């Protein structure tokens, strides 16, 4: 003989909460019948209660139900998903880990292949464009130059000046020990022209210009604008990338020339303040060791960095997935990719030059 609990006419969330404890306790004591037939006012918590007693307490609780509540239960109670849920992937843990690593490696290798293919394509597109002047929106290169210059000039100048000041102060301390004050000029000049200006310019371009390119191209991809270009007979890799590549090629030399001047100016300021070296003497000393080829290599390096940033961020933008949130992820990844490329290329240059 089981106990019977007659549930009240009104059984909404407050009543359900109040009754639940009692029901559970009686169910522990022995078989129990819950009579829902009087229930007229109910809500989703009532249905949840039904679901709960039918599932968790099925072997001790019998449910009597009728009327509107029965119909509601039929149509609203969540049934277990019918489609078979995927079980855990087969195979032992080590083999799964190996498969995962292999998959990842293959994916990375494929991405690298696609990136290199895109790099080759871009060189080709720029060449063809310079010859035929077709397939790119008229005036777009100038627009891009303006945007890139506008975005990066002030910050490049400020940061390079600060870097110039910083390395001058750090080196000045050491040079003073040897009484080699004047060599600060050679040190700062070489470090700036050959290494720091190209590197810093590249990194700033990665953050300012590269991120903007990825964000723009990725959102165009997600919004099907890139597809639209393609079916218009336009090649997006050309239409979108060539103006940016030409623009960066033209903007970077200006940026580098400016940054070289500003960075060395930072050194001059520090030399003047700490050692009292007159600016003219600083420049004369610098000229004895710094050659035009140093300036040239620095410039070349920066242009290559600029290309790496534009191609890398363009690649990230055009290969984005299809949801809006991936635009943000692609942008972050693009900055990391650009900086990685810059440092790799810098390393290669170092081997070539010394």
């Amino acid at each position, binding site marked *: 003989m089981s106990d019977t609990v007659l549930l009240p006419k009104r059984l909404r969330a407050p009543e359900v909460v109040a009754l639940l404890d009692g029901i559970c306790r009686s169910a522990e004591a022995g078989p129990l019948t819950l009579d829902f037939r009087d229930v007229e006012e109910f809500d989703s918590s009532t249905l949840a209660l039904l679901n709960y007693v039918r599932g968790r307490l099925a072997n001790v609780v019998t449910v009597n139900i009728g009327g509107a509540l029965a119909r509601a239960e039929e149509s609203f109670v969540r049934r277990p998903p019918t489609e078979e849920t995927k079980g855990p992937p087969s195979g032992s843990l080590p083999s799964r880990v190996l498969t995962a690593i292999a998959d990842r490696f293959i994916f990375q290798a494929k991405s690298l292949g696609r990136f290199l293919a895109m790099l080759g394509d871009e060189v080709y597109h720029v060449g063809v464009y310079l010859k035929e002047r077709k397939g790119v929106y008229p005036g777009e290169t100038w627009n891009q130059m303006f945007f890139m210059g506008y975005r990066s000039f002030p910050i490049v100048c400020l940061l390079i000046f600060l870097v110039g000041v910083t390395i001058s102060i750090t080196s000045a301390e050491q040079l003073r020990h040897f009484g080699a004050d004047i060599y600060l000029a050679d040190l700062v000049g070489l470090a700036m022209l050959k290494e720091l200006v190209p590197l810093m310019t590249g990194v700033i371009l990665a953050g300012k210009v590269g991120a903007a390119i990825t964000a723009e191209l990725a959102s165009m991809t997600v919004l*099907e604008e890139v*597809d639209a270009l393609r079916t218009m*007979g336009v090649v997006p890799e050309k239409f979108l990338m060539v103006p940016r590549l030409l623009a960066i090629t033209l903007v970077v030399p200006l940026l580098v020339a400016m940054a070289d001047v500003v960075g060395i100016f930072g050194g001059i300021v520090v030399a003047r303040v700490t050692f009292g070296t007159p600016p003219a003497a600083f420049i004369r000393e610098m000229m004895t060791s710094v050659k035009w080829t140093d300036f040239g290599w620095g410039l070349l390096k920066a242009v290559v960095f600029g290309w790496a940033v534009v191609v890398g961020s363009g690649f990230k933008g055009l290969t984005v997935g299809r949801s809006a949130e991936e635009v943000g992820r692609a942008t972050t990844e693009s900055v990391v990719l650009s900086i990685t490329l810059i440092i790799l290329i810098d390393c290669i240059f170092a081997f070539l030059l010394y």
Partner: protein
Amino acid sequence: MDIIRARDLTVGYGRTEVLRDLAFTVPEGRITVVLGVSGSGKSTLLKTLAGLLPPLGGEYDFAGSRVDYRSEASLRFLYGKIGVLYQGGALLNGLSLFENVALPIRMQHPKMPEDMVRDMVYASLAQVELAGSAEKYPAELSGGMTKRGGLARALVLDPDVVFCDEPSSGLDPITSALLDDLLLRLKETFKMTLVVVTHELRSIERVADSVLVVNDGGLRFSGDYADLAAADDKFIRTFFLRKDSHDNA
């Protein structure tokens, strides 16, 4: 004549097959409606037919020649004959509506005099009743205007086939009727072939000459609209059931 022929066409992304082994034709100069629940692969199919997404298997002939997704020449031939209206309009954000519609002309015929470009753009914009908004930017257009702008851009170079992905979804009944009229006009006046994805029962009734029904990873029906009612398929029956209750309401 059938302008599009698909044999054993399987479409999807990478390893995911979305629709398998499709065999159908699209008659020239008529309106073919693609029907299917959301997520069934209508856009995927359209992307493949528009040359954007290589099929995972099978063959696709357009205007009598096999489409080879790896050959630039083959794709250029295809792109030169089609116009596509994308689900969201896909106007370029940095360009005004006028420049958006002018873009295909400028890219395909760089030497065309500016006066002619203007005439063509305004003719196309007038068809979708947007001539007054030519100087607006996409951000200043409503959803319906963006779609109509996308259609104007798809039409500006007089394509043989126009693919439209849900042209009237999210539009008010008046604008959507205007689009239906336009589709019919394009068919009758310019003998264009149209492939239209739509859910709007009213517009299916008005414009459909033939129908492709996709569901559950495959093609459930392909043929004349008139024969659709007789088709013995659960999805199609449900569809007509909904239509009946619609009519009674």
